[in-house]
């Protein structure tokens, strides 16, 4: 973990209630896809944990959903403003455990960390394919960015207003063969994917956090191998250790 000041380069709307925030600063503490940063906002006591969507040198991209006053405040910030980040948080995904044909499943705000994951898997010569689930057409984002990487992408919307109607699990049967599964999204989605995907995999969890670096025990969950702090020992858990 490091505490660093970053400068906003861009803060643009990607879909209804979804924004992409590009920052420049010292990204040295971020070593794996699936890690997150915890950013301080003036007027709010707790930091906001946001997963890393992309990383290129000193350029960091975060994609976030405006869900309350804090993220609304962040949405109003402009190019040139500074943000205080705790960076390099969480364990991140271990790409080494994946076979050559990994499946990446993202639900809503769980999609962003899969972008850097897909890039890393491609760099390792693997062929990631995506299933992305959203509530409705207006909330669909990142689909084209994944296609631009050269990944096959299946999109589902719960109300059928865009692409296939249904949930991500409805697309599991028609996404082609896969030998490993990475998933990030709300817990009901993770649980459904856990039950339906036939392979081993890694699942990234969300939680309300106090500190984000393992000190307060505010986000502890049970696993088959003892209590784990989602912020520090996670947010990524191996399929074999998850206790629902």
């Amino acid at each position, binding site marked *: 973990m490091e505490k660093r000041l970053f400068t906003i380069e861009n803060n643009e709307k990607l879909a209804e209630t979804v924004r992409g925030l590009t920052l420049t600063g010292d990204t040295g503490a971020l070593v794996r896809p699936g890690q997150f940063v915890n950013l301080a906002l003036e007027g709010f006591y707790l*930091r906001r944990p946001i997963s890393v969507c992309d990383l290129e040198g000193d350029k960091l991209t975060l994609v976030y959903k405006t869900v309350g006053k804090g993220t609304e405040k962040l949405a109003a910030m402009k190019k040139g403003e500074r943000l205080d980040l705790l960076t390099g948080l969480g364990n991140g995904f271990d790409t080494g455990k994946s076979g050559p044909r990994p499946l990446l499943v993202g639900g809503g705000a769980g999609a962003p960390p899969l972008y850097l994951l897909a890039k890393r898997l491609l760099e390792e010569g693997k062929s990631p394919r995506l299933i992305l689930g959203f509530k409705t057409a207006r909330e669909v984002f990142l689909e084209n960015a994944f296609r631009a990487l050269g990944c096959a992408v299946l999109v589902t919307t719960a109300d059928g207003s865009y692409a296939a109607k249904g949930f991500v699990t409805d697309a599991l049967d028609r996404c082609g063969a896969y030998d490993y599964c990475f998933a990030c999204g709300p817990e009901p989605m993770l649980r459904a994917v856990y039950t339906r995907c036939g392979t081993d995999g890694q699942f990234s969890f969300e939680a*309300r956090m106090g500190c984000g670096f393992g*000190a307060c025990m*505010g986000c502890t969950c049970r696993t088959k191998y003892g209590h784990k702090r989602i912020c520090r020992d996670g947010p990524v858990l191996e399929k074999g250790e998850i206790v629902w």
Partner: protein
Amino acid sequence: MNTSVTLSGLKLDNPVIPASGCFGYGAEFAELYDLDILGSLAIKGTTLFPRFGNPLPRIAEGPEGLLNAVGLQNPGIDAVCETALPCLKKLYGKPVIANISGFSLEEYAACARAMDAQENVGIIEVNISCPNVHGGGMSFGTDPRAAAEVTEAVKRTTAKPVYIKLSPNVTDISEIARACEGAGADGLSLINTLLAMRIDLNTRKPVLANLMGGLSGPAVFPVALRMVYQVYEAVKIPVIGMGGVSSAEDVVEMLLAGATAVQVGAANLKNPFAAKEIIADLPRAMRKYGIENLRDIIGEAH
């Protein structure tokens, strides 16, 4: 300039101590800075048996503060004595404050007995004020007779200084303070968190799975300061002041109210360098307010 203070014979280089539950066992912070700059360090609250704590969500936000309902998650006294304290000893060379909690007098006594045998424990801090556990914790801290009984039970088991950590969720904290002093407490720590709640407007239900949690952070500082002031008038034993301390100025203010040392809690969670920065900033604040020896200003507001 001199920042040292003394708690029951234990000399601290400075009065700044990370508070229990906001610093784990130091490991996460030792990656960021040399812990030996700290006056002391209060470890995560320890109970006789391991505890998972409360279901999630355990955390909510408030204006200038946070609510927690962690519920005393800890690996239990045996694991703390066999693993956590020896590990901490490698990271921190000074005596620590061992925070213990229980659900019966016997549990408090058993934890204190185990901590008494630990070489790097300088003070035993007895939590009778946790708002997040049922059938224990705060129920001992809201009744003067129960508070005195816990104090006596712990004092019988240990020769180390015993500090009782008091709850602000009482009508008259002075009465509880006097009861602990009368039962032999060597000092008092105050305040624990204030019982609080938030409701999610979308779900229309409380944010915390435990429904209620303890409020800490700058929001509670004036309440904590007032109680330290009142308790200083009520007892002769030393007081460790805590509740929203976030700056060197807050440290000075707590000492003026009557605290001999302070604990820094929530500030560590927002800024992991908070305790280090406060200690580094103390000389500046002392110069600004014309303070040569920090210990000279203890209780000066009275």
